[in-house]
């Protein structure tokens, strides 16, 4: 399998939340990187995962499928999934696929972190 063209960095964001910075492409090849980042982000008392898409270069239907897989895990753990930094185009794709019903979309990191820690 080709190497994933993506990097993910995990950092804390308050007592209840972690941020995963997504840099590059969210495709089928990103599965291992995304799930490793999720495992790292879920340590401790984290109840919310925030995906930072400010540096997302490309996402395809396989990437959408990955987000669904991540959502299944997050729902099972009774956690919450939030995002910020989505471009207008990917926001419209979230609306078309109804991912925006399950993943809270925010305009900024500050807003997403506030929402994650107040839930």
């Amino acid at each position: 399998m080709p190497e994933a063209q993506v990097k993910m960095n995990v950092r804390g964001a308050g007592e209840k939340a972690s941020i995963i910075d997504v840099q590059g492409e969210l495709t089928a090849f990103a599965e291992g990187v995304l799930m490793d980042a999720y495992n790292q982000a879920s340590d401790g008392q984290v109840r919310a995962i925030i995906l930072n898409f400010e540096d997302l270069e490309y996402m395809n239907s396989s990437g959408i499928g990955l987000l669904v897989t991540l959502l299944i895990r997050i729902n099972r753990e009774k956690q919450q999934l939030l995002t910020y930094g989505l471009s207008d185009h990917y926001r419209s794709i979230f609306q078309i696929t109804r991912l925006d019903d399950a993943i809270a979309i925010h305009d900024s990191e500050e807003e997403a972190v506030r929402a994650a820690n107040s839930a």
Partner: protein
Amino acid sequence: MTDPKPARTDANIRRTLADFSVPSEPGNERLAMETVAETVRDLDIRGENLERLKTAVAEATMNAMEHGNKYRSEVPVEIMVLVEDRDLMVRITDSGSGPPPAQAGDVPDLEAKLEGMQTARGWGLFLIKSMVDEMNITGDDGHHTIELVVHLGAEGGK
């Protein structure tokens, strides 16, 4: 990738803007997408409409490479970009055998996917249909073609 051939003009005012192919290798859908975007640079399609066309081209090329050509790198995906009147058409052809993908297809249902009733994947054809004004699928014994149509102009694009 083969180089895009120079444009030619048919008698019925249909113009071929590009005719090229990409090897069926993972990631080449982005090459196809960027080549089509460059080809239509001077047409009346930009902003979100252009982004939607790019996504449709990438998804259709990925489908062709994966399901049609089974990611055999020596089997190319053929891509033609044409303009006729106020329609932009992108035709993406693979060398798949068997019936072409169903035009209607199953509509992905996020709730069913989250409950494990549908696979997490399976968004491709739905995305393509959502991104362009028309999607037509044709096929014969040795080929499948997905035709993407965008109506150009102020009302063009979804």
